[in-house]
C-alpha cells in the first residue's frame, strides 16, 4: 500500500466538491474519490449536504458491509461544524474530501477557501453552466480578498462523441474562465448503481467507468502533487 511521507501526512489535503445546482454528480464524485483515495492513505469524507446526506448514507452502507477500510465518513449541519470537523480530520488523515450542499451558502464558501483543490462537477447543459456562474463570482470575490481558490471543472455525464457536448464544454470553460480536468466522466448507469449500494465504480463491473475514474484520480493526485 502506498503511504505518504510523514511531512505530507501532517499537512493533509482537503478536496472540496462544490456545485450550486443539485443532481450534477457531487456525491458521485465525492464517494468514488473517497473510495479511491482510501486505497492510498487515510481518508475522510465529510458530507456537508445534510439533511440530504447522500454521501453519509453511502458511507453507512459501506460501513454495514465492512468496506470502510481506511475511510472515515462524517456529516455536518453548518459551516462552523464543518470547519471544526475539517480541522480535526485533516490532522489525522492524508486526504479529506468534502461534499458540499447544492447552494451558495456559508458552507460552500468555507469549503472553497479551505480546499487545496476545489472540484466543480458540471454536466454539459445550459442550466448547470448558468448555475456555475455564481460559483465563479464567489471565486472572484475571494480573489479580491487575496484568497486563492484552486478550482477545476470535472465534466460529468459527458457524451464524448457528441459534437454539441464538446462545443458546449469548450464554450463553458471559456465563458466561465475555469479550467477543466482532462479526464471526463461519462453518462453511465454504473455510477448511480454503485452509489446506491455503497460501492465505488472500482467495485462495479463496468470497465469503461473504472478506467475513466482511475484516470481522473491519477489527474487529481497529480494536481495535489501526490
Amino acid at each position, binding site marked *: 500500500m502506498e503511504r505518504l*511521507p510523514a*511531512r*505530507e501526512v501532517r499537512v*493533509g489535503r*482537503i478536496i472540496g466538491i462544490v456545485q450550486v*445546482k*443539485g*443532481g450534477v454528480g457531487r456525491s458521485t464524485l465525492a464517494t468514488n474519490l473517497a473510495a479511491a483515495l482510501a486505497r492510498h492513505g487515510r481518508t475522510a469524507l465529510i458530507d456537508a449536504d445534510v*439533511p*440530504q446526506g447522500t454521501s453519509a*448514507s453511502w458511507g453507512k452502507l459501506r460501513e454495514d458491509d465492512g468496506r470502510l477500510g481506511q475511510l472515515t465518513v462524517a456529516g455536518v449541519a453548518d*459551516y*462552523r461544524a464543518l*470547519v471544526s470537523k*475539517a*480541522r480535526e480530520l*485533516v490532522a489525522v488523515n492524508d486526504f479529506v474530501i468534502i461534499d458540499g450542499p*447544492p*447552494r451558495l*451558502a*456559508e*458552507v460552500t*464558501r*468555507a*469549503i*472553497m*477557501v*479551505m*480546499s*487545496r*483543490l476545489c472540484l466543480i462537477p458540471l454536466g454539459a447543459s445550459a442550466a448547470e453552466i448558468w448555475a456555475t456562474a455564481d460559483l465563479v463570482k464567489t471565486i472572484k470575490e*475571494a480573489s479580491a*480578498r487575496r*484568497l*486563492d481558490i*484552486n478550482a477545476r471543472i470535472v465534466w460529468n455525464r459527458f457524451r464524448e462523441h457528441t459534437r454539441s457536448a464538446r462545443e458546449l464544454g469548450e464554450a463553458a470553460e471559456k465563458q466561465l474562465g475555469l479550467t477543466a480536468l482532462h479526464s471526463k466522466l461519462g453518462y453511465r*448507469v454504473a455510477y448511480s*448503481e454503485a452509489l*446506491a449500494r455503497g460501492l465505488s465504480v472500482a467495485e462495479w463491473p463496468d470497465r469503461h467507468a473504472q478506467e475513466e475514474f482511475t484516470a481522473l484520480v491519477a489527474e487529481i493526485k*497529480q*494536481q*495535489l*502533487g*501526490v
Partner: protein
Amino acid sequence: MAKRKVKQNQDTVLGDAILAKPDFEQALAFAESLTQTESAPWVESCMLGAAEWPVAVTQFAAALMPQDVESRKVLEARARAIAKPLSQQQHELRDQYLRFRLGAVERYGIPYAYLEELLYVGNLARVPCTPAFISGVVNHRGELLTILDLKQFFRMPAVAMSDEARIIVVKHDGMRTGLLVDSVDGNEAYQDAEVSPPLSSEGVSNMEYVLGIHDGSVTLLNLKALLGDPALRVHR
C-alpha cells in the same frame, strides 16, 4: 530525495498560497462575510413607511391588489419577506424539498421533513385485492414497504416506467410509505412566502393534496393530507 521530488511536483501544479492551505480562520471569515452584506440602496428605498407615500401611489397600489383573501395572504407574506433587511433574508432558514417528475413533464416536490431515502425500483411484488394506486410492496431492509403509485392516485395518464423511476421513502406519523415516481431531479430551497396558491388547471385533480406552486411550475405536495387519506388507511 523522494520528498524533494514531491515538493517540486507540487510547485509546478499549485501556487504557494494553495500549498499553505488549509486556513480555517480565513475560511470561517469568508463564509461569514456572506451574512454581512449591506442592504442594497434599492432595498432601503423600498422600505419607506406608507405614511411617506403620495396619496395617488397608495390609491394606485390598492387598485392593483387582488381582492380574494387567499391571494392577499400570499402577497402579504411575500411583502413581509422582501421588506426584511437583505442580510436577514439570506440568513433565514429555508426549507428544502425534493423535486421529482410524474410523467415526462409535470414537476412535483415534497418537503424534506418527510423524506427518508430514495430507492431504485427493484422487485415490486403486487398485492391482490388492493386499489390500483397501490403498486405493491418491496422488502426494505427486512420490512415490507407499501408503494403508492402517485400517478394512479392523482388519476394521471399512465406512462411506461423507465430506468429513471425511483421510490421515494417518506415517513409520517411513524408510518413509512414508498412513493413511485418517474424520475428524481434534485432538491430546491423555498420559503412559505414563495409558494403561490395552486391553480385548478394543475395536473393534480385532488387539490387538497397540494401545498402550492413553487418557482412557477413545481407543485408542492401536502404529504400530511396525502398520507392521511382514508383510502390509504387499513381497517377503516
